[in-house]
């Protein structure tokens, strides 16, 4: 059997840390990086007699997410206790939502790279999203023969977002994770900091012969905290399962860990020793009731969503689906683009989009800067785009001006054009003069062109542009050169 006979099936469970100031059931701070246990109050360390009180800010963020994915926000959801013993779980149970989660259904649209330089659109349905508290951390380093416990993270609010098993490749899984990552930051419910564990993925992976409707047995890869690891882990795991089956083996349901150093997954526990969590409704917390008014209030405070904005970019600005999706990857990028279009005019939207996604993105990436701290402002970029549009400068000169703006050599494209004399030459007479000079000095290329070598023409155009120090209008050079060469 060959590799192509297999289909990979992936579902993701993503733990997003909600960006509330205090914890989900206590008043302790959620700030990252404090001294161990400095941010663990009586409730977090589960002293006898303490009780949880739900943080409404966490609920509000869950509502925001539900609205953003077009899901149903449950009018009544229930917190349950998930019971198991672990030193970094002080109560001996985690408060989570089990049978009745706060968010049900919904979907996310993503653009997936097709491996041929293009992209295709995919809609992934979500099963649910539920609120829960994070556990603390067990620290095994620095404690010889012992384990340290840091409960600062205990009680941090999480929204666990569960997708349907609808991804069919690691690329789709990564595209989904990235879209989700972008969305939670867009609606400002999670800082998305993957290094600090604010966005962690568990991937359920199974394989089946293409065409089979039933699912294969899945293994769950826990705690993937980068998109690269997500891709690597899924690819390894899928291949491992395929090889196992092809060698006559059977996949056993298990929880596995991905080792980034070896690039391999290995089983942590099998189904046999899976915990019986003995879920039951937490009697310390009343059912979470969310009325229509609350939802309406949250809805009123929501920013325009990336999907709606992307649709608007396509219909109003004439952008492609891919460009629109790229420009709505984050609120900052979208806002920059919108500001540029507002200044440059809708007619120049596509040029603005090209610059934001092209030169600007590349330059920011190289300098490791966010668009929010871009040295070139949206207004400056719009000024540049306007000069390209009205033929004042060529694209080549525009790149130079962009560089000058980046380096703060001038206030605006106009100022730099003026100061550096970069105005495009469109005067036919002046261009003809340049062409005449070039033709006289490059008889060899002229002969070659006349002998049928097309490439020689491009060389001559290049010489003309060079002679004009890039200022000659390239289209005019082309046209006039052709005429002169007969």
């Amino acid at each position, binding site marked *: 059997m060959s590799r192509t006979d297999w289909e990979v099936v992936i579902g993701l469970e993503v733990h997003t840390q909600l960006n509330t100031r205090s914890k989900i059931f206590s008043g302790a701070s959620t700030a990252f990086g404090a001294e161990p246990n400095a941010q663990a109050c*009586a409730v977090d*360390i*589960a*002293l*006898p*007699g*303490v*009780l*949880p*009180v*739900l943080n409404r800010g966490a609920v509000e963020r869950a509502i925001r997410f539900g609205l953003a994915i077009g899901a149903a926000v449950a009018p009544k959801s229930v917190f349950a*206790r998930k*019971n198991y*013993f672990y*030193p970094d779980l*002080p*109560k*001996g*149970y985690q408060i989570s939502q089990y049978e009745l989660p706060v968010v049900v259904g919904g979907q996310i649209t993503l653009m997936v790279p097709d491996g041929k330089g293009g992209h295709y659109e995919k809609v992934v349905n979500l099963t649910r999203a539920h609120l829960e508290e994070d556990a603390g951390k067990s620290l095994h380093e620095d404690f010889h023969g012992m*384990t340290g*416990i840091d409960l600062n993270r205990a009680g941090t609010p999480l929204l666990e977002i569960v997708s349907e098993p609808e991804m069919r490749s690691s690329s789709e899984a990564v595209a989904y994770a990235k879209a989700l990552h972008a969305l939670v930051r867009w609606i400002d419910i999670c800082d998305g900091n993957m290094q600090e564990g604010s966005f962690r993925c568990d991937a359920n992976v199974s394989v089946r012969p293409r065409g089979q409707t039933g699912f294969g047995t899945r293994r769950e890869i826990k705690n993937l905290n980068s998109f690269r690891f997500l891709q690597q882990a899924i690819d390894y795991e899928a291949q491992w399962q395929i090889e196992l089956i092809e060698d006559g083996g059977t996949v056993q349901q298990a929880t596995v860990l991905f080792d980034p150093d070896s690039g391999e997954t290995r089983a942590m526990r099998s189904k046999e020793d899976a915990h*019986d969590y*003995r*879920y*039951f409704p937490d*009697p*310390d*917390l*009343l059912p979470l009731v969310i009325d229509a008014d609350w939802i309406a209030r949250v809805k009123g405070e929501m920013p325009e969503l990336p999907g709606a904005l992307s649709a608007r970019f396509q219909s109003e600005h004439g952008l492609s689906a891919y460009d629109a999706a790229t420009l709505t990857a984050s609120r900052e990028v979208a806002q920059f683009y919108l500001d540029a279009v507002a200044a440059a005019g809708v007619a120049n939207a596509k040029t603005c989009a090209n610059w934001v996604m092209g030169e600007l993105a590349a330059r920011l990436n190289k300098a490791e800067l966010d668009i929010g701290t871009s040295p070139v402002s949206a207004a400056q970029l719009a000024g540049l785009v306007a000069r390209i549009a009205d033929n004042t400068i060529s694209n080549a000169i525009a790149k130079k001006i962009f560089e000058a703006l980046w380096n703060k050599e001038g206030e605006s494209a106009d100022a730099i054009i003026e100061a550096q004399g970069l105005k495009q030459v469109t005067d036919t007479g002046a261009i003809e003069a340049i062409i005449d000079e070039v033709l006289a000095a490059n008889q060899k290329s002229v002969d070659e062109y006349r002998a049928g070598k097309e490439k020689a023409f491009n060389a001559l155009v290049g010489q003309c542009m060079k002679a004009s120090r890039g200022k000659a209008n390239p289209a005019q050079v082309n046209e006039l050169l052709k005429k002169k060469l007969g």
Partner: protein
Amino acid sequence: MIDSSLKDIAAALRDRKVSAVELATESLARIEARNPKVNAFVTVDREGALTAARAADQRIAAGTAGPLTGIPLAHKDVFCTEGVRTTCGSKMLANFVSPYDAHVVTLLRQAGAVMVGKTNMDEFAMGSSNENSHFGPTRNPWHTDTVPGGSSGGSAAAVAARLVPIATGTDTGGSIRQPASLCGITGIKPTYGTVSRYGMIAYASSLDQGGAFGYSAEDCALLLSAMSGHDPRDSTSLERDTEDYSAALDKPLAGLRVGLPTEFFAAGMSDDVRAAVDAAIAEYRKLGATTVEVSLPNARLAIPAYYVIAPAEASSNLSRFDGVRYGHRAADYSDLNDMYCKSRAQGFGDEVKRRILVGTYVLSHGYYDAYYIKAQKLRRLIANDFQAAFQKCDVIASPVSPSVAFGIGEKSGDPVQMYLSDIYTIAVNLAGLPALSHPAGFGSGDLPVGLQLIGNYFGEARLLNAAHQFQQVTDWHARVPAGF
């Protein structure tokens, strides 16, 4: 002076006939002399009491005293007290000192009450006899070979022995009413959510409710008023204004409709209890009340439902006692799991282990629906029965316990027999209703018999009013056990 009513003690304090320090000293001296006979106290806080008493005297002098200022009181050792150890009757917490006060403790401290110590209890409030305490059984002051009831047996015995005039307790399945009955004092458990559970070590969260012990309904009304009120730290705390339960004590009982549940008066209670209960009901009729038969057809299911729900919640609530952060940790262990097993095996007593095992079982995969969900359905049926009954009556009267205090060791070998002693009280917790027990006479062995009055939600004031009127024409509550 400690034998007097709170009203009289407060008047004496106000008139400078006695000081709070003198009262505290008297209470501490009585504890020293009498506690060895009853073992009602686990911890006595002499210094803290005297400090609090001095502060109370200053308040009295400044004219800012309230009705409880300077009154000695004891807390059941289930309430966390900052700086004074809180054991919950368990070896697990034998050396635990809470860094914070329970809400109830804070309220009573603010009211100026003087805490003299912490009272003995069944371990983690699991029991009906106080025999399940790591600190030895509490004895009934009426007959020290008998049990005081449980789980708030220490508080009930401390009040009955006149060591303190008032004490706090908690009631999950009868743990205030049954010891009040067996010890011949008055005890009230209010509507679930009236008293904050913050800082009250949880046994079964959906059933646990704090309450008050005193010599009389009048004293219980004062204590309950001071310890009730909304607490935002307890999500199940009711968002109601604080109520003055003393306000309606003097209302005449003419027209009060007393419901008598057929099922509670059928076979099951001993003859001496029946005689006392019947006599008490006759007394209510004399006071102008009418009686009407009501039915609680599902009440017989209360014990099985309770022994699913309470252990289920307990099995989870007690998971935090793992030896990791506080509490008992085994001296020797080979690994993490071994540490958990040994610490919990050593730290918990038999009844606690039994309930953790039962609770773990009923919540397990494959059994949850058959036990836990079923029990929750029964719970709803039982609550509905009460609502139907309250269509016909204002309060429900019943026995508290099928018998008077039983002998120490008599039932401790048979958990089911022990569980059945709560047959009249448990349904009330499942429904979340308020109920009290007041002295109604004496049965065999000259041991006290109590009468239970059950009210509809928020009916505490009516219950206390009824009991107070009863206590105006009877003196059962004024009887003091010989030698105390």
